[in-house]
């Protein structure tokens, strides 16, 4: 039983370490990014508020796309590590 659980445990330990930091970073970016873009554009770049609103929405969606990409990359890293751990166990079994 522990032989099968070893890959899951390795994956779990590496994954849980960085999750909280990533989540905090993305929450901060979602809170600050769009509204900061809006006010930055209205103060420094253009007086037209509609352009600033469009830029704020684009930034919000970019944060979302970034989050999805990080989540997918984590998924692929998980699969790779599970694969490697399984191969190591196979090698150890045949020895």
């Amino acid at each position, binding site marked *: 039983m522990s032989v099968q659980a070893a890959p899951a445990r390795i994956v779990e330990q590496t*994954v849980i370490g960085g999750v909280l930091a990533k989540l905090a970073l993305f929450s901060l970016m*979602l809170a600050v990014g769009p509204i900061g873009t809006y006010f930055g554009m209205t103060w420094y770049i253009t007086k037209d508020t509609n352009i*600033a609103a469009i830029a*704020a929405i684009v930034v*919000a969606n970019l944060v979302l796309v970034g*989050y999805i990409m990080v*989540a997918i990359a984590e998924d692929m890293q998980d699969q790779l590590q599970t694969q490697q751990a399984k191969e190591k166990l196979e090698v150890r079994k045949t020895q």
Partner: protein
Amino acid sequence: MSKLCPPFAPFLGFAGVTSAVSRCASVGAAYGTSKAGIGITGLGTFKPELLMRSLIPVVMSGIIAVYGLVVSVLISAGLSPDTEYPLYAGFIHLAAGMSCGFTGMAAGYAIGIVGDACVRAYAYESRIFVTMVLILIFAEVLGLYGLIVALILNTRVSGLEGICSL
């Protein structure tokens, strides 16, 4: 005060500001976050390594709230006591706020229900991830359409100088 610029016109403008943020942000995003959160905590009890991916519905509900916030900031930038404010502008701002608010409520509702169901299914079948993201994106563009309508309405407010003295 002329008939075109009654003193109660800013009431409608501020009502638009409030409805954008309180309906989009508080109702829509709160429902989406809470309903998806129920599924995510259920998933987290036996598969904690899937947490980062299963939090996508919550992030999308946050984006709905940001839409409401941006629209209300945008509308409130057009309200001030020293410029004239016709009743027409009041109605436009009310319509903009309400269109963003109600579509945000609908989008948050959809994100909550879809997020809950898909996250529970993701615990058993990992290929459902792509389907979940696609459905959530379609649910979120509902809020985006309301935001686009609010922006288009807001551009109609400019160019009304001198209307109060007509």
